[in-house]
């Protein structure tokens, strides 16, 4: 059997992300940023990033140069934020070859550093983002105040400028209608949890994002430690709910989850909405050992069949129906490969 390496807590935690917001002290912030100043941000930052130790690993992309699908693909793979696309005319991104480090330029703040890793690896993600932050801050000073910390365009980000988040897959907790209780507990810890996909009225794929609220008054270490502790508790809770479901009626659980495998392997039309539910089922099944498919592979495939990414794969504009056909086709083909490995 093929062996694959799992990141810490990857049965429940899909990925860990750190974002750091910074602004150059001598340039106007977002609302007053003229095209000339925006260009200055790009010049300074790109030059400084390319000159860091691993600078040659970064690819520089101007959002204005990309097709819409290509932009969406970056959002779907969490390489850039959706907000970066609000400023398409001036924004850019630098993305490391492994996709683990991104520098966003001219988003809401001049610079946003991002570290992104699979599983629960917030500390390492933070290290990656902070290393770049330090290297750049040495060349051009960032706006900073001893009382208020790093000054962000929005006061909601001022202080550490740090937003730490994890994406969690919680099918058992959601299935047992326990998310309300989890959310209430989380709010008391100064953290916030919400559905990752969908419009707020649903959490597609049972995916949730847990992140810190405040950025002022607590150190980066404190914030990260609190988020890791909360995540570990949710992970334990989710695992015990999965075990309970198995204990209660294993055959029933296997039956309901593996039916989704059947659908995915044979469907000819697949909407994103249906796919997200099926994906949640087979990911759950894989984490229980009912299905021998690598979780990192499933997660990558999940992002690859989102609308923008699928459009990039098609290489042309496709209609919604063509998109459903292509999604079903890619899934059949890629899932077969994943389980065969």
């Amino acid at each position, binding site marked *: 059997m093929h062996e694959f390496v799992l990141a810490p807590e990857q049965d429940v935690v899909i990925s860990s992300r750190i974002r750091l917001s910074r602004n150059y002290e001598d340039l106007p*912030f977002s609302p007053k940023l003229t095209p000339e100043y925006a260009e200055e941000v790009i010049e300074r930052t790109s030059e400084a990033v390319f000159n860091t130790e691993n600078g040659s690993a970064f690819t520089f992309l101007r959002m204005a140069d990309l097709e819409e699908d290509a932009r969406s693909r970056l959002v779907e793979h969490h390489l850039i934020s959706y907000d970066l696309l609000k400023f398409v005319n001036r924004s850019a991104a630098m993305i490391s070859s492994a996709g683990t480090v991104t520098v966003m330029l001219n988003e809401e703040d001049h610079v946003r550093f991002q570290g992104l890793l699979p599983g629960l690896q917030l500390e390492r993600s933070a290290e990656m983002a902070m290393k770049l932050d330090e290297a750049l801050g040495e060349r051009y000073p960032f706006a900073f105040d001893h009382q208020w910390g790093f000054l962000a365009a929005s006061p909601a980000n001022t202080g550490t400028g740090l937003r730490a988040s994890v994406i969690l897959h919680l099918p058992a907790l959601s299935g047992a209608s326990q*998310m309300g209780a989890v959310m209430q507990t989380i709010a008391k810890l100064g953290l916030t949890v*919400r559905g990752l996909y969908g419009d707020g009225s649903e959490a597609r794929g049972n995916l949730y994002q847990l992140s810190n609220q405040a950025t002022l008054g607590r150190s980066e270490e404190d914030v990260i430690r609190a988020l890791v502790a909360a995540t570990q508790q949710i992970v334990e809770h989710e695992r015990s709910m999965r075990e309970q479901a198995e204990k209660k009626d294993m055959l029933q659980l296997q039956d309901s989850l593996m039916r989704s495998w059947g659908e995915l392997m044979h469907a000819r039309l697949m909407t994103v909405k249906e796919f997200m539910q099926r994906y949640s089922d087979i990911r759950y099944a894989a984490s229980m050992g009912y299905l021998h498919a690598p979780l990192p592979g499933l997660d990558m495939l999940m992002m690859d069949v989102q609308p923008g990414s699928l459009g990039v794969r098609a290489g042309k504009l496709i209609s919604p129906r063509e998109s459903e056909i292509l999604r079903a086709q890619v899934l059949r083909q890629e899932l077969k490969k994943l389980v065969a490995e």
Partner: protein
Amino acid sequence: MMCEDCGIRPAKFHLVTIINGDRVERDLCPACMARHQKQLPGIDFSNLAGILNSILENRNADGQAQQEEEYASYTCEQCGMTYAEFQKGGMLGCANCYQAFKVPLTALLQRVHGNTQHAGRVPGGVHSGVSIRMNIDRLKQKLQRAIADEDYEQAARLRDAIRALNIQLERREGDIKVEPQARLSSEGKGERSDA
């Protein structure tokens, strides 16, 4: 009432969402409401910070309105942004705006973050007061262990490191004393139970 998402603009909408049968209610400003209505995958939630539900405000509504009106005319000399403009868009125009709008911003930051004193890293990667103290504590423990193990070379290194951190700490606290506005936050400082 302020928006529960951004904590910056007044709330105009009441949004009720039901996620897997769990009802969540929020008071939102138009900008945040628009964001909630967008149905895009991979939407970035990093800006939806500062939910204010745990923060109680018992201010006189009339007095507040009058004060807000006065703040609205504040203007940043450097970039020309007015406080009214900031209230509308939620973003400041430059670093100097933080000085120009210091009084209302202090109250706003207190509401959003429950705090007005930065406790994290400072530029150059050096840690600020709280973290420095944590480092000193850690090094002191190591120092005791080194002495117990009779590793005097290591002990000397640790002693020097602690001395350097203490100097950093003194210098930093000196800085803060010089700035008059730091007094506003003196309550919160040093009383951090989690430090």
